[in-house]
Every structure is written in C-alpha cells, then in structure tokens.
C-alpha cells in the first residue's frame, strides 16, 4: 500500500464524490437535493484537479519565506491546476447560483419541489 | 301529378336559380305528322315488305297475352309468316292489344302506341276491346278501343285461340297489302278527337299530348 499517497487518496475521494454526486442527481426527486448532487459532483472534480497538480512533498506556489527564490522550480507544486480550479470553482458557483434561482422560480410558480411535476415538455 | 313532373327550381353551378318544367323541358311536344303514301309502285312493294315483316310489340296488356305465347312454339310457329317479337315499341310495327284495358293500362298503351313509328298497326284481341265484354260496366276498364286509337283488326273471342290470332294476322297482312293499313295517319289526322276521348277517361293526364 505504499502507493497510497496523499494525491491518490484525494483523487479517489474526488472520483467517489463525483459518483455520489451523479447518483444523487439521478435518484433524488427533490430539486434542491438534485442541486446538492450537482455541487458534490462539481466539488469532486475540483478535488481531482487539485490532486492532479500535486507534487510530492512540496509547498504552495507562493514565493515567501518557505520557498527559496532561486529554486522555485523544485519547491512548489504545479500552479496551473490551482489556477484552473480557481476558475472552475467560480464557474461552479455561478452555475449553482443559477440552478438555485431557477428552482426558486419554479417553486414560486408551482409550489412544488418534486421534479416529476416539471415534465410538461416532453416527446 | 307525380312529384317529379311538377315545376321545380334548381341552382345552377354558377349559383343562379333555374326554373325547370319537366313536361316542357324533358319531353318533345311536337304533334304527329301525316305521312302520305308516296309513289304507288314503291308503296306497293313497301306494303308487301311491311306485311311480311310484322314485328309485334311484346306488350301483354291484358289476359289475352297468354294466348300469344303459343304462337312462338313449334306447334303454331308464327315465324314462318314473317311474324317476330320485338321488345321495344321503337322497332315494332304491330301492337297487339291483348284483352281488356284498365284506364291505367290505357295510358301506357296510348304512350306505347305513340312511340311506334309510322306505319304501325293495331290488332285488338278479345271481346273486351270491342265492347268491354264481361267488363262492359266495370268502373275502371274501357269498352271500345277504337275510340282511343285506330284499330286495324279485331279478333273476337274470350279468349280467341292462337289459331284465331294467326287468322287475324293473315287478315292484317291483306289489309296492309291493300294499302289500307294507314292507322297511323288516321291517328294523326283525327288527333284532336282521339286525344279528347283519351283525356275524358284518363283523369290524371300528366304527359304531353303526343309521346314521341
């Protein structure tokens, strides 16, 4: 089990979160819970992203006292996934906000959070 | 009058109303013409042919009709005298009125007679056509046929046997050959008189005066 490093654990956690998120998204009938399913899915992805960028035994890519300015290349983890995950989080935030807003609007119109009440459009 | 012969208004395809008078629009109202015999020589030849080609209208008006059928059988075989049956008045030349005539039948008989072409001949069969016979005081039969159309030959009897009929045809042949078979012309000449008689007895007169 020596392979079971930090990044592997987080990666697997991320994958499991993704699967749990999808499972929730697909099986829950409550709109809010579906949104929660989505956020789990999203979070799982973010964790996967961060895991991918991790380099063993290194520190955050910020040049301060703990990082030798002349040996940055060998002391920090990959900054790119971190930058990407920042963007992804913000996008996820926007999407979640939109979902909740739509749910709110739907609830206002029909006073129901049951997803089966919203399939007038079909076929 | 039958409903169909009353005047009616229909709408034309263009949407205009059209007045229809069936009796005028659908029936010719021309009067019959008198056709004088032509050149005597030709006429004599023609009369010979007419006499030897008697096409009888197959119209059983009364009970006497039963006596006409045997004429076609091998026993009497009227064909050998040039007598044949025709199903349509258009092509027939002899009209055998076979027995009594109810008023209703008279109407049909008159109509049929008028549809035959000149020259045409009438044989009246049985006593009833002569004086009404046993029905002389009946409420709905006529007594004398010759008041309604010219009759060439009467064959008396009730019923006359087929032999009498053959004799009657032979008599008719003689009459035609002598040029006396001009019943059609007589009918045209005395048309008004015949019509008056017909109309007197036929109350529901709902047709043109002459049925072409």
């Amino acid at each position, binding site marked *: 089990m020596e392979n079971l490093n930090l990044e592997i654990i987080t990666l697997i956690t991320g994958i499991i979160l993704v699967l749990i998120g999808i499972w929730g998204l697909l099986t829950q009938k409550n709109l809010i819970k579906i949104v929660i399913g989505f956020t789990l899915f999203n979070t799982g992805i973010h964790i996967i992203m961060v895991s991918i*960028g991790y380099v063993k035994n290194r520190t955050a890519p*910020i040049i301060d006292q703990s990082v030798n300015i002349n040996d*940055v290349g060998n002391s920090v983890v*990959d*900054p790119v996934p971190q930058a990407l995950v920042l963007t992804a989080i*913000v996008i996820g935030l926007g999407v979640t906000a939109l979902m909740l*807003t739509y749910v*709110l609007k739907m609830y206002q119109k029909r*006073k129901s959070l049951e997803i089966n009440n919203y399939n007038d459009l079909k076929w | 009058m039958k409903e169909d012969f009353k005047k009616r208004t229909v709408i034309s395809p263009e949407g205009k109303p059209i007045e229809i008078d069936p009796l005028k629009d659908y029936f010719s109202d021309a009067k019959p013409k008198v056709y004088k015999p032509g050149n005597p020589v030709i006429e004599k030849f023609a009369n010979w042919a007419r006499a030897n080609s008697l096409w009888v209208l197959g119209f059983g008006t009364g009970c006497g009709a039963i006596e006409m059928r045997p004429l076609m059988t091998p026993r009497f075989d009227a064909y050998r005298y040039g007598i044949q049956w025709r199903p349509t008045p258009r092509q027939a030349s002899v009209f055998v009125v076979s027995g009594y005539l109810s008023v209703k039948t008279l109407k049909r008989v008159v109509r049929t007679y008028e549809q035959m072409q000149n020259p045409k001949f009438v044989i009246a069969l049985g006593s009833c056509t002569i004086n009404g016979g046993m029905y002389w005081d009946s409420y709905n039969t006529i007594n004398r046929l010759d008041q309604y159309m010219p009759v060439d030959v009467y064959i008396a009897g009730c019923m006359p046997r087929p032999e009498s009929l053959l004799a009657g045809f032979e008599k008719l042949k003689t009459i035609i050959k002598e040029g006396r078979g001009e019943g059609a012309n007589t009918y045209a000449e005395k048309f008004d008189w015949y019509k008056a008689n017909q109309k007197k007895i036929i109350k529901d007169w709902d047709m043109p005066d002459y049925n072409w």
Partner: protein
Amino acid sequence: MVKNSLIFIVLIGFAVLLADLFVGFNGNTDLNTLANHYAVSGPEEVGSANLVTAVVVTYRGLDTLGEVTILFLAAAIVSFLLKVEAGASRNRKLRSTSEILDTASKILVPVIFLFGIYVFINGHLSPGGGFQGGAIIASGLVLMLLAQPAKEVGHKLITLVESISGISFVLIGVAGVLFAAGFLDNKLLSLGKFGTIFSAGVIPVIYIFVGLKVGAELSGIITNLQENQNEA
C-alpha cells in the same frame, strides 16, 4: 427499481471509465515544462510572488476575464429572473433579529469588508486575490442582511461598482494591446520591486477591480435571493 438499477449499472460504467482514465496516475514527482516555466520565470516575468495569481491574472488573464464574466452573467440572470415586478407588494414577513447579532454585525461588517479589501490588494503577494477578497466582502454583506433583514441594499450602487470595475478590467486589457505586448499584458505598468505591494505590474490593479466586481456580483446575487425569500 428498474430505473435505479439501470442508473447503478450506468454509474458503474462511468466509474470504470474514470478508473481507466486515472489508472496510470501515480502522483507527480516533478513539475512539467509549463509549470516549471511559470515557477522559474514567473517571478521575473510577472513580478508576482503568488504564482497562482501570476497564472490567473496574467498568463491566463483571458480565463479570468471569462470567469468574471460568468459571475456577471449569473448575477444578471438572477437579477432578471428574480426581479420583483414594480408595484408588487413588498411587505415581506421578516423575523426580527436579536440585539446581539445586530450589534455584532455592525462591528464586524466593516472589519470583514476591510479584510476583503486586504485580501485582494495583497493578491499578488499572499494567498488570496480578487475572487477570494470579493467573496469575503460578499460574506460581510450576508452577515449584514442576516442581522438586518429589512435593510434595503442599493442595487444601483452594486450595479455601478460592478459596471465600472468590469469596464476598467476590459480597458486595462485593451490598454495592454495599445501600449504593451498584448491583451491584458502585465507590463503596462512597471513590475516594481518583487515582493512589495506596488509591484507585479497591473496585477494589483486588476485584482482590485476583480475584487470589487466579484464582491458586487455576489452581493447582487445574494440581495436578489434575499429579497425573494418570502415571495415564494
């Protein structure tokens, strides 16, 4: 039940797919070329101590612009969808809050705001940045609205901040095209001395606008949601 088992089967398939994807993943031991370039040359080229900031704001500035735009879009859609129609009754039933919360919030909110501003101004030096700072500002607003539910937050102010900072961000980007090497070029301003507050070119400026903008956008979303809370 059939449906659930179907979902389960599909999910297993998906899990297999993900497993297949990462089966060869064994952790990194070294930076790849790209990351190495950022780590080694980043401080020099961009002048930002926070390498993530360097990547986010400069190298991948266009992404950030898009990111801000997404928030902006989300805010606009939320505001559009939840816009309370003019003339609709606004008498919301609000629970009164406790004195403690009210008082505490009055003390804390300015501090939170200040902290937020600190975070985005120092975005190029320390962990944090425009997004983080904006989020902190918005959290202050949440506290304020929790404490004083009846308080009307000026939408106009939010919009104004949002628009001005957004336009400024774009203008900085365009200025990069006009006066420097490209859109959102960092070297529009001098890089300054590495590790100080006035360094890293336009990064702090951009982060200020980003912070303001994110704060305003999140605030907009929050206030809109909040104003709708009893409408349902």
